[in-house]
């Protein structure tokens, strides 16, 4: 496998900033502008959220952005239209993140083919279980050169982390604490101990920490333990501020990384 994720992690092992946003939010056609603006501000990796009506792993912020995006008319078909020519404009690694049902209805084969044509690098489907992926879809993902990214949590047993590592290619999404998205309780001693435990396991895939990363301090703290960190809800909130997308994105990213 050789895609933009591999290149990114080969070139940069520390302080990677990854940002999640919900496609179709705040407005239906903001997708391209948000991606390009994030890249201009030095974001290393972008997760494009495919909105779902019943986002089980998400807290209120992403629930709300998903509901707005769906109301705005976002669908997987629409998103692929918007991204059709994105690779003429940017080479930033792009990962699609969403729930299984809309992808299943679109058709997994068709989804893989289309994502690969566009130049998508990876996919996160939190409710697609590992063994189901391995049995039914792994071959398809590899054929289309798409990294499949799995989550681990502080409760994931060591043996399962090893299994996930062996089936992953790209990075491992380390959920910071037992939580839905958007909690900002900070990375306590339990989280830190888990980060250290995973770091000591010497996995083949780099780890990126997500969930609850919301400001400069939590970003820096997460980066001490992994290749980088993912910001989702806090960024989605920033997009709702008064003012232009450009200004909001710029000031948010600067607040994380100045």
């Amino acid at each position: 496998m050789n895609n933009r994720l591999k290149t990114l992690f080969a070139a940069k092992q520390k302080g990677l900033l990854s940002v999640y946003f919900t496609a179709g939010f705040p407005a239906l056609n903001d997708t391209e502008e948000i991606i390009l603006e994030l890249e201009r501000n030095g974001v290393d990796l972008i997760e494009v959220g495919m909105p779902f009506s019943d986002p089980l792993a998400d807290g209120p912020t992403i629930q709300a952005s998903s509901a707005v995006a769906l109301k705005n008319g976002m669908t997987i078909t629409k998103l692929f239209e918007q991204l059709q020519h994105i690779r003429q404009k940017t080479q930033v690694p792009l990962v699609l993140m969403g729930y299984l049902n809309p992808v299943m209805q679109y058709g997994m084969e068709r989804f893989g083919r289309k994502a690969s044509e566009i130049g998508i690098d990876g996919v996160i489907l939190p409710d697609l279980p590992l063994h189901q992926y391995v049995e039914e879809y792994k071959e398809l993902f590899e054929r289309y050169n798409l990294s499949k990214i799995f989550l681990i949590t502080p409760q994931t047993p060591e043996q399962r982390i090893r299994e996930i590592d062996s089936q992953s290619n790209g990075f491992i999404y380390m959920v910071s604490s037992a939580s839905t998205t958007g909690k900002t309780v900070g990375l306590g001693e339990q989280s830190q101990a888990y980060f250290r435990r995973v770091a000591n396991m010497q996995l083949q895939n780099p780890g990126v920490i997500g969930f609850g990363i919301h400001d400069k301090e939590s970003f820096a703290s997460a980066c001490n333990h992994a290749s980088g960190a993912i910001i989702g809800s806090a960024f989605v909130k920033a997009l709702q501020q008064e003012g232009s997308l450009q200004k909001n994105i710029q000031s948010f990213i600067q607040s994380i990384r100045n």
Partner: protein
Amino acid sequence: MSYHVNEKGFYGKFGGAYVPEMLYPNVEELRQHYLRIMQEPGFQAELQVLLKDYVGRPSPLYFAPRLSAKYNTKVYLKREDLNHTGAHKINNTIGQVLLAKRLGKKRIIAETGAGQHGVATATVCALMGLECIVYMGEVDIERQAPNVARMKMLGAQVVPATSGSKTLKDATNEAIRDWINNPEDTYYIIGSVVGPHPYPDMVARFQAVISEEIRAQLLEKEGTELPNYVVACVGGGSNAAGAFYHYLDEPTVQLIAVEAAGKGVDSGESAATSILGKDGIIHGSRTLLMQTADGQVTEPYSISAGLDYPGVGPLHAHLFESKRARFMNATDDEALQAVLELTRLEGIIPALESAHALAVLERLQAAPDDIVVINLSGRGDKDLSTYLKHFHFDEQ
């Protein structure tokens, strides 16, 4: 054809455990231990005593003479409405709370639609001295107020679900999110044969006492364990699963699952999943699901809070696709008509959910010698304000 769950957690192509990694350890712990714990003699002894002395089992199998005369067939009602707390739901909550205790859990969460499962959960938590949090859609909190009051009286915290259609689906989402946020001390008592494996199988096993008793009771009354029809309403499908369970492999017994048609199957306001749904994933299981072409879950509708759900359990999806069960449906109006009919013919006020099962009696066209068992899943106390309003008794 097998109608039982296979070792991978599937009924045909339906079922499985499509859960995010955050839930994996909890669901896996349950999967590894549920059968072993349920088979322990100590567990069974405790369960059987509670079912008998606390719930009041066996529930009677009542021959309904005037209903039988009206439809010119032999109608029996399985009286789950006479259970403690007023519905079949407690068969499952007693079982699961005993399991939760054996797994060392201290905090119990549940979702509820009609409030019957919430009340049954709050009840067993009071009995066991466990903390109890029940998620309930805002719309349902309004339309099932008596059950909200009972839950509070029992010491449960009732948390409103305010997203989506503010009904059962949304309450289930919130309960799952709670479980993600509290993975260590919390046990989720799911109220129907839905959710990730092993829940559908576990809940069906706890409800299977219904058909186990029907067999013995019918043998005594009719000289046969096998009726011609077993009829039950289907929300998620737990009372139906319990009533069907010991008849799944008896091909002469027709299994009739009745869904809520709401204002009519084609009205856009319905919960008839077998007709309106397609293969999809909801609440951790692959099943039939009402959804848009883009895979977004659509908002169901039924006057009955317990049937107002856009999916059915994976067992029922399999019974539908394999044609082992026949799926019928009843509208709001037909269900309400059936409520009044049972009340006036037999002196029994049924729950709105159960009334959907009663409402198909005429369409069954059963023969005079046929035995029809209808699972009367619950009593109508919680629905009285709806009934008073609909039948204008509040104006007299």
